[in-house]
């Protein structure tokens, strides 16, 4: 069964994020599996909250993504969205001693 | 009217636009500016007025169409319908540098803090800011950069010839 989650980019970091509503608290997570989908919350609430976050300059470029549930995981239906959720599909070149910023979204 | 800057100072704008679409055919009194079409059509009538005259150009208009009237025009209004539409930059330079126009060149439309620096370099000396702009920040933006490489309306030589 397909559900909808809301996604955007975090304004400050630029990272891909998903709307999550827990205990009435709205937040944005970089983990698609922690997104709140229409499985549990009404689409209208999700979209209102997502747009509000954009107005509050927390995120940029809100849109909705179709996902299916696979056990604990939420899997976007479209290829592009799967890559967006999972990161580049190729091995990233990496230097030794990379200090900052690494693996934030991993 | 909104926020208006002339010669780098907040100023009072006394000009009235006349679009030609008004209900009445009579021109308002005082200083008015009209579209190029209206200028061409009613030029003789306009020239009999005692007030100051201006023209507003579409950014597709050829500035050389007013070449013979530049002495009589105190104002030329150029438009930025969208921030990203940069045609009026060229119009302004042609007016100032090629046609040696001395009157007011005014920017209207998306006239924004981050644009006025370029606008003044191209010869604009008056700015009707978009409503959301912060007047003081815009005033500072004129001096944001002290280095320029090219000649333009403000300085005629590139940096290597100054």
């Amino acid at each position, binding site marked *: 069964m397909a559900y909808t989650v809301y996604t955007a*980019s975090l*304004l*400050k*970091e*630029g*990272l*891909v994020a998903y709307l999550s509503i827990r205990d009435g608290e709205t937040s944005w997570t970089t983990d698609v599996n922690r997104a709140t989908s229409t499985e549990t919350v009404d689409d209208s609430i999700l979209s209102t909250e997502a747009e509000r976050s954009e107005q*509050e*300059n927390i995120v*940029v*470029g809100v849109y909705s993504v179709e996902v299916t549930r696979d056990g604990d995981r939420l899997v976007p239906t*479209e*290829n*592009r969205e799967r*890559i*967006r959720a999972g*990161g*580049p*599909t*190729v091995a*990233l*070149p*990496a*230097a030794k001693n*990379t*200090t*900052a*910023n*690494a*693996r*934030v*979204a991993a | 009217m909104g926020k208006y800057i002339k010669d780098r100072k907040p100023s009072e704008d006394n000009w009235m636009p006349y679009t030609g679409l008004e209900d009445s055919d009579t021109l308002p009194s005082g200083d008015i500016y009209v579209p190029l079409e209206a200028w061409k059509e009613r030029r003789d009538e306009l020239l009999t007025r005692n007030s100051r005259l201006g023209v507003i150009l579409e950014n597709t208009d050829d500035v050389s169409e007013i070449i013979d009237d530049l002495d009589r025009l105190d104002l030329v209004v150029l438009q930025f319908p969208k*921030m*990203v*539409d*940069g045609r009026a*930059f*060229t119009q302004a330079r042609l007016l100032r540098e*090629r046609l040696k126009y001395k009157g007011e060149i005014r920017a209207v439309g998306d006239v*924004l803090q*981050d644009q006025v*620096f*370029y*606008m003044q370099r*191209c010869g604009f000396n008056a700015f009707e800011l978009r409503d959301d702009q*912060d007047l003081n920040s815009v005033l500072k933006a004129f001096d*944001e*950069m*002290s*280095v*320029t*490489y*090219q*000649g*333009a309306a403000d300085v*005629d*030589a*590139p940096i*290597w*010839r100054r």
Partner: protein
Amino acid sequence: MYQYSQADHQLLLERVTQFRDQVSRRLKGELSEDEFKQQRLRNGLYLQLHAYMLRVAVPYGLLSSEQMRTLAHIARRYDRGYGHFSTRQNIQYNWPKLEEVPEILDALAAVEMHAIQTSGNCIRNTTSDPLAGVARDEVADPRPYCELIRQWSTFHPEFNFLPRKFKIAVSGAIHDRAAVAVHDIGLRLVKNESDELGLEVYVGGGLGRTPMIGKLIREFLPVHDILTYLEAILRVYNQFGRRDNLYKARIKILVHETGEDEFRKQVEAEWENVKASKLRLRDEDIEAISAHFKDPDYEILPDNDADFDNHLITNPEFAKWVDNNLELHKKPGYRIAYLSLKSPDQPPGDVTADQMDAIADLADRYSLGQIRSTHRQNLVLSDVKLTDLFELWEELTKLGLATPNYNHLTDIISCPGMDYCALATARSIPIAQALTDRFESYDYVNDLGDISLNISGCINACGHHHVANIGILGVNKKGVEVYQLTLGGSAREDAAIGKILGPAFTADEIVDAIGEVLEVYLENREDSEEDFLTTYRRIGQSPFKERLYG
């Protein structure tokens, strides 16, 4: 290399201050995303598929070792330990944070670097021949003209909001290594009968969804007139370029729709008005800039070396590299070395921070402290002594930068594709890697000889697939990534747009399809001297079509 003046430094500092303020206004919500986007793009900052991407200008592909170390530092400190060299000789970082970009710009400014106009609808960083100043086939050094164009175009008040982006390339050699034919303006330095230096001016080349080869608008423009002529072209474009349709906004469409002759007339008419302005270069202006690009003090060296010859005989791996990755230098006893960024282990064009640091050290040790980037996404050490080559090669081998494939099949140009790019319709890096794995045999690749294979992840064609001998374009067909083949393109002096061969292949099929294409070439070439493009031009598409679809 060009040495910054006080004014150049000042300008960078002011620009960083300005951008820092723009970022802070954005974070406070005073600037909308729409408007901030216009500003951040003019500073090379995109919002990509996974994160922001910062594109740093490498003016006409020249880097000092100090600058390279700063690029390494930025990769480590602010990114994920690597960077990506693009087809426009620039370097891109894939993971910077918006908040930290002003700091990155500070670090860049300290070494005379920046991200100014690396994106947005303005005049972009000028590109050039990576062998400028050292090539044997050079008519004149293009770098002084590139630098003049850099200065003229930087924050040009009139041309900062053009209908669309605008790319200029300059080449000063017989062989075109800067792909001038596929730029909005391509300039080639030439001499006329009286031995005066001038430029061929090509306008309206470009790739994307409507690929076009630039039209020769002027056969000989005296070099003194370069900037006035550019100003005239840009002015015509700024006024008359289409703004109603994003896909028709490039100057190539204007030239096409206006007609070459009429466009030329408009430019010449405008030029009449500006050609005598102070923008016209005097001899002393050209001399002053050229002084920055004087030859270093080359040693007088013999053009042979017994040790070198010995290594060639005893070390076949070294010999392969020498065969493929070296170019003759205008001075005897020196060679130009290509550092391949196309190893089997890394995406095309990617370099780690460790590699960057090491390259900087090698440049200091062996190549007068300079590095160049190429439009085929490789690096160049331009002034290596014959006697140092073996040591250099040993070091490069340790670093994974000595793959002997320059201008060969696995020297693949690949755009980032859907692994990074928000506009992509398909992935391109995995295809590049699959091809590299499949064609790992040196002997096979070497036998194929000079060939170009380029991959783009969407119709925007950043991977220049149109001008590759073999081009691959990734598209999305009902949710599946498929790959279209084009054959017969060239980005050199015989520039040509490749032709689509037939229906697209899936990711699984494309590697075999390329294999078949290569077989058809091998079967049909007259001898091993006849390269792919020559054979293709001789036999046409049909043999390839028949093999793949017959």
